């Protein structure tokens, strides 16, 4: 019974999410990888916010077969609401309203995650939403139980990068050999970022830990040595900052790959 109910719910949510995407045509950015997705999303959001563009970011863990459509619709069911059926009834009712809302409003940017727990998860998620831009962080051994090795996880991400349109964009972490290896499976434009691999298009160098955070310089094809100071500690924040820089330069300023206003 629970299985049937879940399948039913999943199907309805998928239809509603696809309807929403078809009607609103947002710019879809998918953040993928086994680590650092939160800060990448936060920095992407901050990039768009800086330019006062409408951007919505998925909540943590709303990224699988049920969570992804909910994220697209912008519904986050209250786990504390009494009764599972009640909770989902209200979620579906709300989803229906959002998907078929008369006024589609201004163009928005949707920043989503696609979580893969096991092989073939990605295919289902891609049947709900196709990315315009995909940002890949790293492949680490976080979800090992259903994958034999890290290469198997990379195989799933291959499906995601292959789903990008020709005028799409892939942002790849140049420091992760499996991520950088994904570049060959897309016809979309590829931009790389990194702190170790000097061949990265967006490269952070002269990294220094200071009392209040980190200082570094960003080397890009367009400019040399832009000084950045962040109030955060850890390499993952530098990656997030590099991605933000790409968002600001390539997507917002150069309007690549898709007009968003």
């Amino acid at each position, binding site marked *: 019974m629970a299985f049937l109910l879940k399948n039913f719910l999943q199907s309805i949510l998928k239809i509603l999410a696809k309807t929403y995407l078809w009607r609103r045509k947002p710019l879809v950015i998918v953040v993928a990888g086994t680590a650092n997705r939160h800060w990448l999303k936060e920095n992407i959001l901050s990039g768009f916010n800086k330019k006062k563009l409408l951007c919505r970011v998925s909540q943590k863990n709303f990224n699988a077969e049920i969570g992804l459509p909910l994220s697209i619709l912008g519904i986050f069911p209250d786990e504390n609401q009494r009764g599972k059926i009640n909770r989902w009834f209200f979620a579906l009712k709300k989803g229906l309203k959002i998907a078929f809302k008369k006024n589609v409003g201004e163009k928005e940017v949707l920043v989503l995650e696609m979580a893969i727990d096991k092989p073939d998860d990605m295919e289902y998620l891609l049947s709900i939403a196709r990315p315009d831009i995909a940002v890949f962080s790293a492949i680490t051994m976080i979800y090992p139980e259903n994958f034999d090795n890290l290469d198997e996880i990379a195989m799933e991400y291959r499906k995601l990068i292959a789903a990008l349109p020709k005028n799409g964009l892939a942002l790849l972490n140049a420091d992760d050999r499996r991520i950088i290896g994904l570049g060959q499976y897309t016809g979309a434009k590829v931009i790389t970022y990194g702190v170790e691999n000097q061949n990265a298009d967006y490269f952070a160098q002269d990294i220094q830990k200071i*009392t209040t955070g980190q200082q570094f310089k960003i080397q890009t094809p367009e400019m040399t040595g832009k000084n950045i100071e962040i109030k955060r500690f850890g390499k993952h924040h530098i990656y997030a900052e590099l991605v933000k820089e790409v968002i600001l330069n390539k997507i917002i300023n150069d309007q690549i790959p898709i007009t968003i206003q």
Partner: protein
Amino acid sequence: MFQRTQNINLSPIKTMELLASKISDVVSLAQGIPSFDTPSIIKRAAIKALNRGVVAKYSLTYGLSELRETIEQKLAEDNMFYDFEKEIIVVAGSIDGITAALIAIIEQNKDEIIIFSPDYTSYAETIKVSGGKPVYVNLSEQNNWQIDFDELSAKISPRTAAIMFSNPNNPTGTIFSKDNLLRLAEIAASNNAFIISDEVYKDFVYSDTDYPKPNEPIGKALFSLAEISELRKRVIRIFSLSKAYAMAGWRIGFLHSDEENIQEILKTHDSLVTCAPVISQHAALAALDFAGKEIDMFRYEFQRRRGLTCKYLNELSDFFSYHKPIGSYFIFPRVLKYPQTKVDAKKYKNYLTPEQMESPSWQFALDLLYQARVAVVPGLAFGPAGENHIRLSFGRNKKDIDKAMGRIRKFLTSNF
């Protein structure tokens, strides 16, 4: 034999619980655990992890990477910025974290740890277990249990390895002001001492009102020295999920500090427990992600129970005086009058130390236990300044508080 453990005592709270367990129908306001069960969303996550077969192996000594990422995010919400990869360790409850930190920082010629009195009863024993010497600095009761800086300045020395304290304070419920904490940090810095800030009750900070209405915003943010980036190398902050998420039995918490300190603490944490229980780490992930509303509910309930306990104490103002706690779920009244009828403390010499047998607060706690059938913690358990006080927990449910306070009232009014 047992040379190391000769001077180490069982926690007085456990002693009281042990004595109470031998008497029928005792109501306990002694143990510092909330009356609530772990929220179901957390239990479901643990069951899911168990069924997925991901809990049987060790995690990294640091803890699960995804949990530490979440901890970093939660800390950032509270204005504390730490790198999940190198600056956060998931620990098996705050005592594991405290012990690991103490073992790492105590040195042969820098072996004194300043603790406040009153403060958490296990600090002194943990310091001794870690090879250090506890040095008490009394909080000023007249000044609402704030830090006595004159005494602190007098007691701190080049031998001081750290100043360790709970904030909100257990047992007084005091919160140290930002100004006082910064002053404390200055004193620590001038003596090259660490600061170990135990903030397990940080989610239970209350507003002034006794009986808040449902959905009334009551929580207050707690300032932590770990927010000051200039103090990152000096401050080791500890947090446990035991109280905030009603997860005491799961033994899960975390500590964070600058990478330099964490590298050393990691070694001792590894030697002590290898890693925090992995099933609890999965549960903690769900707690931090999804159980915010439960904390709000707990805080609301505790604030009402604080109001209830204060009401009873106000009715007993001939016997007790107290400062209304702002945080935690404890109240620490001073005993103004001791009853005539006393139980013979010497009868319990197998459980009590000689000092405890002579202590008025122990005597009073035993009187309450054996004559009123209410378990409380004697104030001496929290250091010398705790004498002549008792600790009452309003973490228990309303029924227990009503019953216990009713019994205390009856006992006191019939013994004078």
